[in-house]
């Protein structure tokens, strides 16, 4: 699913949140959105707020409700929000899954199998089915929410802060799921985060907003090559990019690494090379 914004503006109350912006969310890629403090882009996409301009899904404009100016029939999507008090409406894990899919019989064994594999995918297991929601830890709730939102097989997925509340191994697992969804199942994925390190690690393309405009939209790797541009616009650098920038002050030229281990190898080469010269 490809999503386009053409000349979109959005005002809430007296506050202008977007002004005549154009943006493209490409099919089967992971697109990050940085500095969307009010989560306005996902809210427009999912039909939650009124806007002016055009939003196209696979080049088709959806009908807007003439009164509310919100989009009607959005394609099948899942929006995995930060946990809030409305996240879970029933009291057990299994009933949450049945709530997610209407018209399904609670004895449908196929669906129960599906639930179990969905739980296993996020690192939980079948024993969770009987658990009460209020006995889950924060990370278990978060993983459960992801499992529920993915079971409907959405065309596109929006996720807020994908690593929120998760420990190291759980983060690794969620990263793998997102990459698989993109690569094997060609899902369009939109990630919202305030943590530039998370976006640098996970996204193919990145949209950075600034003062209700799109500051830049490009391949993530390309955006972080242009250090001057980022500094001029006071965009926070991912740690590994910051390391490369500081090294330049010492006339050490490191490559544009993405992984810490590659960085260490690069540093080792330069540092020991220098020693040999001396």
């Amino acid at each position, binding site marked *: 699913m490809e999503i386009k914004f053409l000349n979109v503006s959005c005002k809430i109350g007296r*506050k202008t949140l977007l002004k005549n912006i154009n943006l493209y969310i490409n099919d089967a890629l992971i697109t990050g959105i940085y500095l969307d*403090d009010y989560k306005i882009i996902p809210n427009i996409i999912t039909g939650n707020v009124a806007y002016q301009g055009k939003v196209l899904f696979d080049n088709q404009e959806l009908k807007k409700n003439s009164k509310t100016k919100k989009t009607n029939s959005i394609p099948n999507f899942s929006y995995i929000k*930060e*946990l*809030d*008090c409305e*996240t879970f409406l029933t009291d057990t894990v299994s009933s949450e899954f049945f709530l997610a899919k209407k018209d399904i019989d609670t004895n449908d064994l196929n669906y129960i199998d599906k639930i179990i594999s969905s739980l296993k995918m996020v690192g939980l297991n079948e024993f969770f089915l009987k658990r009460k929601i209020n*006995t889950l*830890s*924060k*990370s*278990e709730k978060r993983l459960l929410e992801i499992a529920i939102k993915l079971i409907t097989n959405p065309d596109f997925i929006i996720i807020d802060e994908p690593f*929120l*509340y*998760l*420990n*190291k*191994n*759980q*983060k690794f697992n969620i990263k793998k799921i997102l990459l698989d969804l993109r690569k094997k199942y060609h899902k369009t994925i939109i990630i919202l985060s*305030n943590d530039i*390190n998370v976006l640098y690690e996970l996204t193919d393309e990145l949209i950075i907003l600034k003062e209700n405009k799109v500051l830049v939209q490009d391949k993530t790797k390309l955006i972080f090559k242009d250090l001057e541009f980022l500094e001029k616009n006071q965009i*926070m650098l991912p*740690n*590994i990019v*910051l*390391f490369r920038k*500081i*090294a330049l*002050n*010492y006339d*050490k030229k490191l490559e544009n690494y993405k992984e*810490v*281990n590659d*960085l*260490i190898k690069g*540093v*080792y080469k330069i*540092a020991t090379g220098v020693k040999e010269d001396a």
Partner: protein
Amino acid sequence: MSSFFSIKNLTYKINNQIFFKNFNLVIDKKKFTSLIASSGSGKSMLTKIISAIIPTTDKCVLNNISLNKETVLNYLPKIGIVTNDFNQDFLFKKVKDELAYPLENLGFPEHKINSKIDIASKYFKIENLLNKDIKDLTLSERKKLLIILALMHEPALLVLDDAFYGLTSNDQEFMLEKLKELTSRGLTILNITSKLDTIYKSDKVFILHEFKIKKEGTVKEIFEQDSYLRKIGLDIPFVVDVSLKLKFYDLISDIYFDISELEGALWK
């Protein structure tokens, strides 16, 4: 060193599932103590016990007040709690009203409330937010406000339960700096967290795993045990991770908490 807050011999179970068993913890006065744990190891439950949301009898002792049914009203005003609970909402429209609320609750006169808000907003540099609507704040500003709110009634002990989620790294650094400064003025801080980049300024660090204290030490001593930290699911912050790896290759000789300092030592 004087023990200021302690948990003594705590055993806590729900139905037949035992969570804490003979659990002990001692926090020193005017210190910044961190208790690190990955998710699901008892962090939030411990916060609830300390803040008397889960009732216990004579297990928590704060400055010689032993927490039980009779003393709870003396005990609670002396602590400030910040949780990362997603049900936590603000009560008022304006930031200023929100900051006044805990003080109004304790019966402070208006002029005193105003001067306290004035002092707090200057100290934490949020003067520009006072007249804003809370819904117009960014996530980071809101999280910052939650920490400041917990300090308004001048508690003796501040308990932070994963309070730094959602703060931008600049705000996080600023708040940690300011909080550390408050310990020299008498505040005791217990930072319960899984975010290891919030523990750099700690005087002491405990590792909590499976409802038990597994290790304790200084910040550097704790980070030296990086393979253990990784094993229990904690993320090593980038700058510490790089430090440890470069140290392994003898390219630097210490652990750094700041990338500039690290590279200063590396490329000198």
